């Protein structure tokens, strides 16, 4: 392999990037920049994270969190995209709802989760509700902003052939907005994961990454466990994002071709 083709290898480059971060973190610990008592060494934490991979209970926690994550994300997309289209195409409705929406947007999870605990008797429902609440904003906003970017001539073309507003929405606005909505979904995916873990952390439960962190709270090594679990969250983020990117590349090849996508 030549140097050039090595640099073309995404997996290799990504691994080098991650390894670089690891080395920097380890060095910061070793040189005393960050006292290992205050924040554990990178190697310790990664060791713990690797140990966890063999821990059946923890893997069950991961699966449980992923379940709520997937359900929440799916529901998010199903709700946010249509609402985004509604608000994006009906400016009057949007400006009427705006004060309420903008009021709701900055409510933090620490305030939200206790309320959700009051309202839901089922933990899974509670998690999904909290995820949808927090994760739907990026999809909503990206949908609304994406709609503004639709080429008016493309819409007029379809209108001139006698298609109604719904058909224009479905056949022009949706496909041309889709790539930007997808970016919103990728944003939402990470937020959903964060909220799933936070809901388990604040709301308790019997399984989930957040519950795992809770349970380790009694340990004197709690910080190590927390950070190790966090690394797992990050890894899940990287993997899910790669899957999304892969799907986007297949679905939106036309978009890349037209816009000189740098790959």
């Amino acid at each position, binding site marked *: 392999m030549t140097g050039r083709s090595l*640099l073309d290898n*995404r997996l290799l*480059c990504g691994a*080098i*990037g*991650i390894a670089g*971060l690891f080395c920097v973190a380890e060095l910061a610990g070793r040189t005393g920049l*960050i006292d290992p008592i*205050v*924040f554990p060494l990178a190697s310790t934490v990664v060791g713990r994270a690797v140990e966890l991979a063999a821990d059946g209970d923890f893997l069950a926690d991961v699966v449980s969190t992923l379940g709520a994550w997937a359900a929440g994300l799916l529901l998010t997309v199903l709700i946010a995209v249509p609402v985004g289209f509604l608000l994006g195409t009906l400016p009057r409705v949007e400006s*009427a*709802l*705006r*004060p*309420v929406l*903008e*009021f709701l*947007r*900055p*409510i933090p999870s*620490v*305030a939200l989760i*206790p*309320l959700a605990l*009051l309202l839901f008797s089922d933990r899974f429902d509670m998690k999904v509700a909290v995820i949808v609440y927090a994760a739907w*904003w*990026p999809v909503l*906003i*990206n949908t*609304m*902003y*994406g709609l*503004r*970017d*639709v*080429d008016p001539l493309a819409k007029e073309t379809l209108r001139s052939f006698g298609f109604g507003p719904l058909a224009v929405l479905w056949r022009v606005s949706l496909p041309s907005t889709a*790539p*930007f909505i997808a*970016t919103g979904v990728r*944003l939402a995916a990470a937020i959903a*994961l*964060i909220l799933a*873990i*936070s809901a388990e*952390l604040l709301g308790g439960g019997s399984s989930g990454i957040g519950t795992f962190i809770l349970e380790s709270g009694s340990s004197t090594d709690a*910080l190590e466990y927390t950070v190790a*679990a*966090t690394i797992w*969250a*990050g*890894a899940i*983020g*990287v993997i899910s*994002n*790669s899957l999304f990117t892969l799907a986007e590349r297949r679905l939106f090849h036309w978009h890349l071709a*037209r*816009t000189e*996508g*740098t*790959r």
Partner: protein
Amino acid sequence: MMRFLRALGRLWLVPVVLVAWEAATRLAEDIFFPPPTTIAARMHEMWFSGPAERLWLTDAALENIPTSVGRLFAGWLLAGVIGVVLGVMLGRSALLSRFIDPLVQFGRAIPPPALLPFFLALFSVGAQMQIATIVFGIVWPILLNSSDGARHVDRQHLETSTVFGLSRSQRLFWVILPSAMPKIFAGLRLSLSLALILMVISELVGSVNGIGFQLLDAQRSYDLPGVWGTIVVLGVLGYLLNSVFLVAERRVLSWHRGANRTT
């Protein structure tokens, strides 16, 4: 004057929602869901019962709200700069993105509260650590949307700038950034509300003032009207910030609205 009245007219939904909220909570008589009037009374007591020469703001209001909002702005601006710079770099450089992208995806999926100890270790308690937390939590929508915008610049626009020999910086400032601007603005708008949320989260540990501290304090004292009052303050702040943001956006993106208007 007319414009002011028209702007006021757009808020018609607010009283409707308030009345419905009041009615619902009065009927439910749940101590966890106090009626808005009770919340307002508590808010008045907490923040707005001060002397007239200080605009009726109490000590608590003057101590907590400006500090929090200050951190919020610092965090948001910093995140804006970092997000746009890094996002555009990742969007335009395939090589860089191959190395850095996994790190970004990794960081994105990490729950910001889990990193509080890390930032505490780096910056110790205080504004620095809180701003770091805010930046870390809200930079992702800006970063992702900027990189999406920078990556998908119309090919013909890039070719035009190549052909006329625009320098790298000219190309960046006159072609890539303006073209990505609508998407960047979507990210900035998302982050603004997220900044409020992260502001609260950053004030949860080791803090002695701020809106988040007050929220926590109210939660700990079972002061439910106080909890709701803080949520209302956050919501109102969110709405106000967003309104100002939209005014700025309308100026910067006026070309975009014009170019994509359909008749």
